[in-house]
Each structure stands twice: as C-alpha cells, then as structure tokens.
C-alpha cells in the first residue's frame, strides 16, 4: 500500500513538474522574443493618407481629444494609412444642402447631422485658376476632346479617358470657365466638396445607396440621427481611372504571424 501511495505521489510529482516546466519554457521562449521586438518600437507616423493614397490626407495631432489623451488619428507604420480615429470629425464642416431624391428612399440626411471634409480649401495653396485664368491657358471654345500637354500625372492620354468608356472627357465634369469648380450637365457649378451632386447625375443607383448609407464610408455615430462624417465619392474613387480600377490598388498591412515553428505557408512542398 505504501509503495503504491509513494508511486502515485512520485508520478503525480513528475507530471506536475513536466506541466509546470513546460509552461515555464513556453513563457521564456515568448519573453525572449519579446525583448527583441521591444527594441524596434518606432515613432508614430504623422503624415497619413485617409481612405486611399494620394486622395485626402491628414496629419497626426497629439492630444487632439484631451478627455482621453487621444491623437486625432493613428496611422499605419507599414503604409501610412489612417487606421484609427481618435476624432472622427477631425477637420470637417457641415455637408451643406443635398439634392432631394425623387423616390421614397430619401435617406437620413434630413434628420441627422452630416459633415464632410472640405477639399476645396486645399486649392488655396494651388488654385487651378492660377494657370487657367483665361490668359495663360485660354478658355476652350467647345467641350470637344483634344490632346493636351499638361496633367499627364492625372490622365496619361485625355483622348482615352478612363471614365465613361470614351464618351466623356475633362470638361464634361470640370468647369471650362472656372477650373476651381466642377460643372453638371446643365452648366451649374458644383463645389469640389460635393462631387456626389455631379456623380449622382449618372450613377443614380449607387447614389441612392449612398444616401441611405449602404454605399460608401461613414465615420462617427452609428445612432440614427447621430453625427456622421459622410465620405464623398472622390475620397475613395479616382474618377480619372475608375474604369480600370474601382479602387486604386494599395499596399496591404502586414500579414499575421505564422504559427510557431512554421516557416512558410505554401502547401504541396516538402516542409510546410
């Protein structure tokens, strides 16, 4: 009996040692890696882009929300894209009036606080009318497409505009006489802050979805009637290349860590 008891005890003891020891080894392995990784902590990224690279951008401001000590945004170390909003209404202003939809899907715009991030103010640094003043670059006499020398960074060949499959070109959307503004088919000037008024005139179905909040992006409050930042068409889509890519391709964030001990993921290889 004694022997059996001792035997059990020894067995139990060994088992415990193994279990605890295993756990300690496991933890040591982790903490060693941790020491290494800690050294590489980097300074926060301050110049960030919002939805898509080269569209709206934002600079990180420390302590923008003093209540929680939040910065206005946190951005990715890998891509500089904004990952997280401390202040979802950062740099926004009221959206302004919105054309009514003629059906019953009127959207919730009337009942809630909608803000947008103004982009037109960015033109203050570099107004289009600086060159397109009617002198330096003459005002075109008609809207007919022709080859131009400038803006090949935006559109390589304006005769093959990547929007509307050849049916439209620059002056169908940009005002011929006031280049700081967009223009609709009736010749009404439209602010660069409200491209939806122009885009919606052709893309009615998408526009209706956008009004309802089921197309496009919004940040802020999920509550009905709460304050939301509405993201306008050109904050996600590039109208000059949209025919090729709905969204401009961008660099993805870092892949997750592989499970411990695994070196690569491809199947069908000797060691996987």
């Amino acid at each position: 009996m004694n022997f059996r008891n001792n035997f059990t005890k020894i067995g139990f003891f060994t088992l415990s040692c193994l279990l605890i020891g295993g756990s300690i080894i496991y933890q040591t392995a982790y903490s060693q890696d941790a020491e290494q990784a800690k050294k590489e902590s980097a300074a926060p990224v301050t110049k960030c882009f919002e939805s898509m690279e080269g569209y709206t951008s934002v600079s990180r401001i420390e302590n923008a929300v003093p209540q929680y000590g939040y910065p206005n945004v946190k951005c990715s170390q890998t891509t500089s894209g904004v990952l997280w909003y401390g202040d979802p209404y950062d740099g926004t202003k009221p959206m302004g009036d919105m054309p009514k939809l003629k059906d019953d899907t009127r959207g919730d715009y009337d009942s809630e606080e909608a803000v947008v991030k103004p982009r037109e103010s960015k033109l203050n640094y570099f107004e289009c009318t600086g060159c397109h003043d009617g002198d330096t670059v003459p005002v075109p006499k008609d809207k007919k497409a022709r080859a131009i020398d400038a803006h090949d960074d935006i559109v390589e060949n304006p005769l093959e505009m990547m929007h509307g499959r050849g049916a439209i070109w620059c002056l169908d959307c940009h005002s011929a006489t006031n280049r700081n503004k967009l223009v609709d088919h009736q010749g009404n000037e439209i602010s660069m802050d409200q491209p939806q008024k122009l885009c919606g005139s052709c893309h009615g179905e998408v526009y209706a979805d956008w009004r309802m909040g089921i197309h496009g992006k919004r940040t802020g409050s999920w509550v009905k009637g709460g304050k939301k930042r509405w993201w306008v068409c050109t904050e996600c889509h590039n109208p000059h290349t949209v025919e090729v890519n709905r969204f401009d391709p961008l660099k993805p964030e870092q892949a997750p860590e592989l499970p411990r001990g695994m070196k690569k993921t491809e199947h069908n290889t000797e060691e996987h």
Partner: protein
Amino acid sequence: MSEERIDIKKERDDGDNTRRDFLKNMGIAAVAGAAALSAVPADAEAKVELAEHLQGHFELMTDGQKKECIERLEKRYTEEFGKKTTVSNAPPVKGVLFGYALSISKCIGCRRCVKACVQENNQSRHDPEIEWIRVLKMEKGNLAFSADKLDKGYPETSALGNHGVQVGGNAYNAVGVSGETEHYYEPDKVPEKDAFYFPVQCQQCEKPACVKACPTQATYRDPNGIVVIDYNWCIGCRMCLLACPYWARRFNWAQPNLPAEDMNPKTHYLGNRPRMNGVMEKCTFCLQRVRDGRYPACVEACPVGARKFGNLLDPESEVRKILATKQVLRFKEEYNTYPKFFYYID
C-alpha cells in the same frame, strides 16, 4: 461564507487534512491581504491580484461590488500604463440588437480593419501576436478542371481494383479543387487579380456555440446580442475556442505585450480593457464604443466602406437596408449558430 462550509466539510471528510488547511490558509491570506492593502505597493498589488481571483461573476455582482472592482482596475491600469485609464461599466443600449454587414464584393483585402482593431482593443502586439480579425484570400470561383492538375489525386486502378482511392498528388492538390484559401498573403498591392477577400471575426451568434461550451459562464450573450467575456471569470480552459466554428477566439498564451504609448485608455470592463495571461478574448463589436454610440473601429478604418454596422431592430438602419436590398449570406449557416454578422454582394 467559509466558516460554515468548512465545518461541514470537516465532518464529511475527516482525514483530508491538507485540503482543510489549504482552505483555512486561503481565508487567512485574504484577511492579511486586506489589512496590508494601504501600506506597500507590492502588497497592494498582491491584494489586487487576490481580490481579482476571489471576485464573483460580473453579472451577479452588486452595484457596490462592481464599483469597487472598476475602481480597482482603473487604479491598476493607470499605474501600470502611466496614463489616466477609464474602465467603463456602461449598460447595454435599450431596444437595440447589433448587427454587422460586410460587402465581399468591395473588400480589397488591405487588412486595415485588422490593425484598427488591434489599436482600439488593446491586443497583445507580439509574443503572442493577437488579431481578432482574419482576412481570408480566396481564389475566385473557378471549377474548371485545369489540365496540369488532372493527373494529380486522380483515382487510379491498382492491382486491387478501382476503389476510387486517391493516388498521386496529395490532399492539397486533388483534381477539381478550386478556391484555395489563405490568410498570410503579402503581395505588393491589393486587390490581386482573380482573388476576393473574406474577413472573418466573431459573428456574434444568436445561438453561440462558445457560450454553450463555457463551463463557468464567463462568456455570455449580452442584451444587445453581443457575446462578451468576463475576463476575470475566465479560467482559460479554451473550451469556447474549440467550440467556435469561426475561429473567432484568441487565447493569451503569455502575458500580453501592450506598449504603454499605444494603449487605448478608454476601456470597458467587458470590452477592451487590458487582458492578462491565460484568458480568452475576441471581437465584441467594440463594446466600449458601440454602447457609447460610436461605430466599431473596423467600420471606420475600412477604406472602401465595405463594413456596415447598426441596429437590426430598426428597419431604417444601414444593416437592415442591406438585408432588404442586397444578396446576403451567413457564414457556415449549417451550424445553426445564427450569426448577426452578414456578408453581402453588391
């Protein structure tokens, strides 16, 4: 509590001295800890640890106990991370059932939602690296039998006859297999040609397998339909991890590494407060934000607006309008878990 219980025990199993002593010592330790609280920080820490270990289930605690517990945590986190940390105990929102919709035709697989979630919810950054969202990359549906795969994994007649047994090739390369899925993709640019992306996170099931599996009821469905975890009540048995059909749950295999400068100090007891070694965690639809009226962090991060969130009980909400007008699917519907996370095509 213990006096009486221990006495009863004494009568029942006389002979088991060690157990009784152990219980007694525990009681003494608790009293000693309580007495020593105010004095030395090290003791305070020990007391906090003990208080946390002896704490009841959050839902069963009285308001006073909850308050005490919240204050204890706030104090500890504030000290630990060197910045003012709040631990909210905000109640569920009245008349709301939270739901989520994700457009698989829009998602470009950029993983910004994944990283936003890490920023918001104070996950361990490395060793273990914990991410609640996993973006699966799938080959576009293609059931064409490609010629170069035809001789792989084809049933072949052997000396024993044709039994439809797969020979040649291997399990990964059987004939007619398409839609290879992986989540470690790392191309220069996304979206890649001929791929679509399928982000998976906790589906906030109406009949959650994880809740059924949990032996301590540390995980449960809150009145808004979000499945939450009382981290202090979790014993780390990982039953829920096994039960969940969506691989939504993550386990803290070691003490989490959360850099103080990156820590989000606005937390909720059942949400993103810093976790400890040996407890389970998962997506809560950013409980600390949504009970406060804010969109979840992944919704705000998604650059293409693929993620939509709202109240399933409100026919005017974004999710309900998607359910009404788009082609919608639930992931692994056959498990009868009834997710409130919907995938849609538009």
